[in-house]
């Protein structure tokens, strides 16, 4: 991963704009699925896909986190999602997990099992954000765990499904000489 300062200003802007478009795709898919499905955790499908894609396509450190900040800001602006002031955390925590694991496993996009592992860990951060909210609201400790497991179970399932597209998409993008 290149340092952001070593890139030309135009290239840096190009990468940032691509991250912005990934954020737009996350926002649009979230909005469309929210209107039609309303299944718990379904939005993780495209969120994990585009966060992983931004991490793999853009050679900047924290690219997924930047994409998450942008999509979180869009969600706040247009009133999407149910997170109150913690809404942006819901976007940033999976992205930071993806950035962290891309540092540990630099070629995670080449194998399905590494993609599944990273996606499962990234999606499971929903447990943390739900835990924080439930704990602050004063819910019973045992029920917090049950409630968070219900919420994060769906997120992990859909997040893993979304990550399964990554190896194929990256291979195709490399074949087209995009990456």
């Amino acid at each position: 991963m290149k340092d952001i300062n070593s890139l030309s200003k135009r290239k840096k802007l190009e990468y940032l704009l691509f991250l912005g478009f990934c954020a737009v795709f996350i926002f649009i898919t979230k909005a469309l699925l929210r209107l039609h499905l309303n299944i718990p955790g379904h939005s993780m499908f495209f969120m994990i896909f585009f966060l992983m894609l931004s991490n793999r396509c853009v050679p900047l450190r924290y690219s997924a986190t930047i994409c998450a900040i942008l999509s979180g800001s869009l969600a706040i602006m247009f009133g999407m999602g149910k997170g109150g002031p913690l809404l942006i955390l819901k976007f940033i925590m999976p992205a930071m997990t993806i950035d962290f694991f891309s540092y540990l496993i630099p070629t995670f996009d080449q194998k399905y099992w590494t993609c599944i592992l990273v996606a499962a860990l990234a999606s499971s951060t929903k447990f943390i954000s739900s835990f924080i909210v439930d704990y602050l609201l004063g819910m019973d400790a045992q029920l917090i765990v049950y409630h968070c497991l219900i919420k994060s179970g769906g997120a992990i399932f859909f997040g893993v499904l979304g990550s399964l597209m990554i190896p194929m998409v990256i291979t195709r993008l490399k074949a087209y000489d995009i990456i």
Partner: protein
Amino acid sequence: MTDDYIHTSMAKKIPGGVKIAVCISLSIIAFATRTPCTLAALFFCNIFVVMMFKAPLFIILKECRFFLVQTVIIIVLYIFKFGWPSGLFPGLTLSIQFVFFLLPGIILSHSVSPAQTARSLSVILPHHLAFVLSVCIHFIHHLMEEVNEIYEAQIMRGARITAKELCNPVNWKDVMNCLIIPSIIYGFMMARQISMAAKARKFQIHEKRTYWNG
């Protein structure tokens, strides 16, 4: 001048930052409200804020249907742990608290325009990220149009990606090959074009924020 006109213009005069701060404060207060009396007080505070910000009450109530699933899960969990009559009241209290935690976000989204929020966010975000965000908002419509064009062109090419054909999981692969990958490539191309256009207009020529004053 009617009272309604004065009220609407007053709501418009409240700065976006103040609205954001009020709504975040209301959400945080929801954590501390545990008794029915304080919940009732918070309810009236929310109603007051809705009236002050001139937020559309009917649309807000309509959006509250998303909380129904959460409410049911919380009440069922409480009844499951504490038994039928004794678990109902704390479960109901907590789910109301949960609604009051999320409600200010909905009020905010209906009372602050995206432009106002963008201005407030540009105070927090670095200026180049604020620029990227504003470009992205500007190009959402264009991007969606292009994705739609790709979708229609691929259908004409014979891709099995219509809503009816997608009921069959065998056709899901076509969505990736014929819609997702071309859209990503288009996103890359558009990012390249915009960055070149920005460079041609001497964007980021100085380290400090630059703007076109012509």
